[in-house]
C-alpha cells in the first residue's frame, strides 16, 4: 500500500515535470518555426537568389540613376538609356573579358535578338547588357564585345558605369553578388532582369527561360 502511494506520488511529479518540458518544447518549436519561416520568406526562398526574385516580383524597385557610357563613348544615365524608345528591357550583367557564364548569357541574348528581329518586336522589347567592370571595359572594349556578339544597335545596347565607385550601388540595386574567381575572372549570379521604360525592375527570370522573359516583356510592354 505504501509502495503504491509512493509510486502514485512519483507518477504525479514526473507528470508535472513532463508538463513543463512539454511547454518548453512547444515554445521552442513555435519559435524555431517562426524564425525559419521568417528567414525563408514563408518557406518560399531557401537561397538568396530565389529571395531576390520573390522580392522583386512582389515589390518592383526603381533602378538607381547612375552615369553610364556606351561603346561609342556617349555619356548618359542608366534611367535615360531605359527611357529611350518606350520599351520593356531585358537586362543582363556582364564583363567583357568573361569566358564562362557571360558567354552563355551572350548566346541567350543573341537568340533573343534573333527572336525580336524575326517577330518585329524591336519597338516593344529592348536588350541591355550592363558591364560591372568599368575598370577594364572602356568604350573600345565594349565596342569589341558589341562586334563579337553582332549586336543590332536598334535592339541590343551595352553600357558600363562612368564611375567605378557606383559599382556597389548598381549591384546592390539588382541584388548581384560578384565574387573574384581564379584567372582574374568573376563569378556572379546570372539572370534576366525585366525593367520597365520608367526604370522599374519588376521581374527576374532564369537565363534558361529566355522565352518566358520575352513573353513577360511582351505582356507588359506599352
Amino acid at each position, binding site marked *: 500500500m505504501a509502495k503504491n502511494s509512493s509510486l502514485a506520488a512519483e507518477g504525479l511529479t514526473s507528470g508535472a*515535470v513532463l508538463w513543463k*518540458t512539454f511547454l518548453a518544447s512547444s515554445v521552442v518549436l513555435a519559435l524555431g518555426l517562426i524564425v525559419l519561416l521568417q528567414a525563408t520568406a514563408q518557406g518560399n526562398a531557401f537561397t538568396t537568389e530565389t529571395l531576390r526574385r520573390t522580392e522583386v516580383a512582389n515589390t518592383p524597385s526603381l533602378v538607381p540613376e547612375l552615369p553610364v557610357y556606351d561603346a561609342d563613348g556617349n555619356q548618359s544615365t542608366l534611367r535615360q538609356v531605359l527611357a529611350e524608345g518606350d520599351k520593356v528591357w531585358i537586362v543582363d550583367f556582364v564583363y567583357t573579358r568573361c569566358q564562362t557564364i557571360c558567354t552563355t548569357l551572350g548566346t541567350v541574348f543573341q537568340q533573343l535578338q534573333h527572336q525580336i528581329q524575326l517577330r518585329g518586336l524591336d519597338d516593344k522589347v529592348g536588350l541591355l547588357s550592363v558591364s560591372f567592370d568599368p575598370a577594364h571595359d572602356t568604350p573600345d572594349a565594349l565596342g569589341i564585345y558589341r562586334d563579337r556578339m553582332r549586336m543590332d544597335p536598334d535592339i541590343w545596347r551595352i553600357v558600363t558605369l562612368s564611375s567605378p565607385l557606383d559599382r556597389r550601388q548598381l549591384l546592390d540595386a539588382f541584388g548581384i*553578388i560578384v565574387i573574384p574567381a581564379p584567372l582574374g575572372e568573376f563569378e556572379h549570379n546570372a539572370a534576366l532582369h525585366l525593367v520597365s521604360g520608367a526604370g522599374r525592375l519588376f521581374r527576374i527570370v532564369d537565363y534558361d527561360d529566355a522565352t518566358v522573359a520575352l513573353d513577360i516583356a511582351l505582356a507588359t510592354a506599352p
Partner: protein
Amino acid sequence: MKLKRFPPFALWIGLTLCLVGSALSIPPGRSLIEQSMAWHMVIQMPILFASGWFLMGGVWDFSKTSPGSWNQFGLTGFIAAQFIITYWMLPISIDRAVVMPQVDVLKVLSLIASGALIQTSLSRSPAVLQLFFVGYIVSMLISTGVYLATTERRLCNAYSLESQLSAGYGVVAIGVALACGWAYRINRLKPKTEDRIEGF
C-alpha cells in the same frame, strides 16, 4: 545541474575551439570563410559546435545532474539544437552570415549554444530518443551534403560552384563522423543507457 570543482581538460579544449572558431569570423581569419564554403560549413561551423559541446562538458558535472524539469529527457534541448543546425544549413543563411556581420555574430553564438544543448540533452535522454534526433541530424547532413556536391545549381551567391562541391563532400563526411561518434558513445555508455530505457 552541478558545477564541476576544477576546470577539467574538456573546458580547455572548449575554450581553444571557441577562440579558433570565433577567429574565423574576424579579419584576417574571416577571409577564409568568405572565400571558401568548405572553410565556412565544414571547418568553422563544426568547430563552433564542438566548442559548445566541450565547454558544456567541462563546466557541468553530468553524473550529479538532476533530470531538469524544463528539459526532461533532453527534449527541449534537442528541438532547439535541431532548429539551429537546420537554420545554418540553408544556403540563404550561409549567404547572410557572409554578407552581414551581425548575422555572423548570431551564427557563432547559436552554434556554440547548439553544441552545449546537444551535450546536455544526450546526457539525459534514453537511447531511442537519441537515435531519433541524432538520426535526423545525420540524415539531414548527408542529404544536404550530397545535394551540394551533385547539383549544378549554384546555391549560395557568396560562393563559387566549385567551392560548393567541396563543401558538399565535407558535409557528408561530418554526417558520417557524427553517426560513428554517436554509435561509439552509446556503446561505451551501454549499461547506463539500458537503465534509462527501463525508466523511460
